[in-house]
């Protein structure tokens, strides 16, 4: 074995299922490996390709596994370093059902099936692992689900990632009868198999369907005798659909045709082979993986790992929703509710661990979480307020809440919310204080703005209670709006913050991109486009004394009502904000990061133009702010 094979064996040893193998077995595999280099976007295999003689392990890079649903490519899995994929040749003889495509320059090891298969005989663990992996890679292969052994709590809803737009699970072994069977025979079949429908076929094509409803209305009423040929009572023609129909489409078809069952055939017409039948119940079952269920699961979860798993599914929900052009406002609402449930659960888990808190408190989210705009896994910002306690208890109480803060932020970090680089978190001594200290803090910030700009960050003015005492939030709310009233100095500060952001377009209407660093030539959408809108909205909402609205989009909508003279500008800003968020979210989902930097070259020409147009309202907003607050003092 040469040194490269040794290195490969070493690599495999660290990943399941290879860690179950002996070093001789590993050596055998490693020396038989073939190394495949995949350029970005290169396809390794696609749907309906003949099976390869090997399966694959990602050595470096990312490979996307996707399926086609409703003629659109949906990514169902992203394989990172060490994950295995392309297991179909082990278990099936037909062609690939998924497409594997490199998301970035990647290297994969091809392990010949002929080498690996003999090892399976002695390693039940490995076989199980492969089976499980195979099943989770293929949402349509539900039939194999029964065999897989899984100890994760999400087993039953493992497929829920594909959400509303998943391919449906349905009965693939429908009851069949021919038109000369009698009604009684058909009813007998249904009773024996506890099904409520039978497909009537002729030369392999479905010609009709008999359901409970038909039997009830036509036989039980005595209109027809029970020995009549079934062709007289069947509903005909039956509505047929393609194999990979989505939940949404199936629902629409049932409504449109006013039927309760759809017949699945190979090419979607009633002249081809029957593949199965979709009933209303299948639709209901599929909907069980909706956001409501996610929230329920969050409330039940007991560890950061479970929460992490749920957060991943939220990401998938967001991704598929965006791909289906669901309005972003809906997506944001749902996502932020789920995010909040996760935050709340994280605090609760810490309390379960530390014992009940010694005083009333409020855990408050700030920044993008506070604005309920967090679609991607960006960083966490928060602060903690506890009620005033007698001097002799103070140390003890503060100590408890600091611990609570540390535990919670650590949990959130595990889930995937990065720690705030500026330390704006409840675990920080500075931001875990008693209510009177916080009131002092806000008074200081807002009344002596000039001296206190050091630690003042505008994100402290976007806040939302996660868990704890509502009264504490109200108290902070009041102090802010009291102080904001006619406070020219404070608005000056916020106004200048909003305007200080670097402009997005150059004089010649070209995007200004990063000049150096790892994000060279990319467009910083967060600081150059989103922040000015967010800052502007916050400033104006405070100045108009509008309480309780944290979301930038709704803030603009509200401003349009409060200040009708400029309503057009506000509405444009609201729309622009949505579009920019969408671009950022798509970028973030694609690269699994915060989406802050946009690679303009990957955008289509239309999107680039749209992006440019979305930057125009920003200019108008700036002018409006300059005008309204007569910015002078700081500038």
């Amino acid at each position, binding site marked *: 074995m040469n*040194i*490269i094979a040794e290195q490969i064996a070493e690599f495999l040893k660290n990943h399941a299922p290879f860690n179950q193998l002996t070093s001789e077995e590993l050596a055998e595999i490693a*020396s038989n490996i*073939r*190394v495949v280099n995949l*350029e970005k976007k290169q396809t390794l295999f696609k749907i309906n390709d003949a099976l390869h003689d090997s399966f694959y392990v990602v050595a470096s890079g990312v490979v996307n596994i996707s399926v086609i649903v409703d003629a659109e490519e949906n990514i169902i899995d992203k394989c990172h370093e060490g994950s295995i994929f392309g297991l179909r040749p082990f278990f099936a003889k037909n062609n690939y059902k998924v497409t594997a495509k490199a998301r970035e320059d990647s290297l994969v090891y091809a392990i010949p099936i002929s080498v690996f298969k003999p090892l399976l005989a002695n390693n039940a663990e490995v076989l199980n692992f492969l089976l499980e992996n195979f099943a989770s890679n293929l949402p349509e292969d539900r039939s194999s689900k029964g065999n897989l052994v899984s100890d994760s709590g999400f087993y039953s809803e493992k497929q829920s990632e594909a959400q509303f737009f998943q391919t449906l699970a349905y009965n693939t072994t429908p009851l069949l009868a021919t038109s000369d069977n009698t009604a009684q025979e058909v009813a007998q079949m249904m009773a024996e198999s506890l099904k409520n429908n039978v497909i009537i076929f002729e030369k392999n094509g479905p010609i009709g369907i008999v359901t409970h409803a038909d039997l009830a209305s036509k036989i039980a009423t005595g209109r027809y005798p029970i020995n009549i040929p079934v062709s007289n009572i069947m509903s005909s023609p039956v509505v047929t659909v393609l194999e990979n129909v989505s939940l949404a489409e199936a629902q629409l078809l049932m409504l449109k045709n006013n039927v309760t069952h759809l017949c699945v055939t190979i090419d979607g017409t009633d002249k081809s082979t029957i593949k199965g039948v979709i009933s209303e119940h299948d639709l209901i079952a599929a909907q069980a993986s909706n956001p409501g269920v996610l929230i329920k699961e969050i409330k039940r979860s007991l560890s950061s790992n479970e929460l992490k798993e749920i957060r991943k599914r939220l990401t998938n929900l967001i991704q598929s929703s965006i791909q289906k052009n669901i309005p972003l406002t809906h997506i944001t609402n749902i996502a932020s509710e789920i995010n909040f449930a996760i935050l709340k659960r994280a605090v609760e888990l810490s309390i379960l661990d530390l014992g009940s808190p010694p005083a009333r408190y409020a855990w408050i989210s700030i920044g993008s979480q506070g604005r309920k705009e967090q679609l991607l896994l960006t960083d966490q910002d928060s602060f903690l307020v506890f009620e005033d306690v007698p001097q002799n208890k103070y140390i003890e109480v503060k100590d408890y809440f600091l611990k609570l803060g540390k535990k919670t932020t650590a949990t959130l970090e595990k889930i995937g919310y990065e720690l705030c680089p500026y330390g704006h978190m409840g675990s920080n001594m500075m931001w875990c204080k008693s209510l009177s200290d916080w009131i002092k803090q806000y008074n200081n910030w807002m009344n002596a703005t000039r001296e206190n700009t050091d630690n003042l960050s505008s994100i402290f003015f976007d806040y939302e209670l996660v868990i704890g005492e509502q009264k504490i939030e109200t108290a902070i709310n009041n102090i802010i709006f009291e102080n904001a009233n006619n406070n020219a100095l404070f608005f000056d500060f916020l106004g200048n913050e909003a305007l200080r952001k670097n402009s997005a377009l150059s004089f010649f209407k070209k995007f200004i991109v990063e000049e150096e660093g790892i994000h060279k030539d990319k467009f910083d959408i967060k600081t150059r486009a989103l922040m000015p809108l967010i800052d502007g909205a916050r400033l104006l909402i405070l100045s108009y004394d509008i309480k309780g609205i944290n979301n930038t989009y709704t803030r603009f909508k509200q401003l349009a009502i409060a200040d009708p003279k400029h309503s057009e500008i506000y509405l444009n800003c609201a729309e622009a904000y949505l579009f920019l968020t969408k671009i950022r979210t798509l970028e973030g989902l694609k690269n699994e990061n915060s989406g802050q930097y946009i690679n303009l070259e990957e955008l289509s020409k239309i999107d680039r133009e749209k992006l440019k147009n979305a930057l125009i309202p920003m200019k108008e907003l700036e002018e409006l702010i300059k005008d309204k607050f007569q910015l002078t003092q700081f500038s």
Partner: protein
Amino acid sequence: MLDWLKHINKEHPEFWKEYLTKFSKKSKRYVILSTKATGDSLEKDVITFISAFAVENDTIMIKDSFETILLQYRFLHDNHLSNEYIIESRLMKLSEPEALKSFIEYLGNGIIVGHQIEKDVAMINATLERMDCGKLRNEALDIDIMHRKLHEITEDREFSLDELSDFYKIQKTEGDSATEEAYKIALLFLKLKHKLGLK
């Protein structure tokens, strides 16, 4: 040029004759080659290490590889060098003629790929001559030239293997043995081949 005249009366070794017969067919197999030698001189220096991987269907075949240390007792002795490290290594060791023989058998009619390959080929040819064989008949590709062609670099500068690895973001290996170099060259070759659209 007049090689055939020089050799016309000499009888080639058996393995060489067999090697020559392999060229009746065109090969789809690439042999990624990296050698180590004691220096650059074709007369005085000798090869100490040969390492190679085969590339077929755009994949590196780990199994189809070649790796051997050449025992150069005479060279070491003449230059008063120690041979301890060679003795201790677990790798396959062969004498120069045996190593070249098995390498030629391994190589067959494959297309040679390497980094600044003409040096390796010249060194091997010099060694082959000492064994009464002719020169290598294989086509040879150079990743340095492929890189310059891809980017249309005309200046006469050579890119080191490290520079190329950095440019194409090939992961660093721990050591710099001939085998690891050959593997790196193989990865670079796959990338360049794809980018240049070679079939």
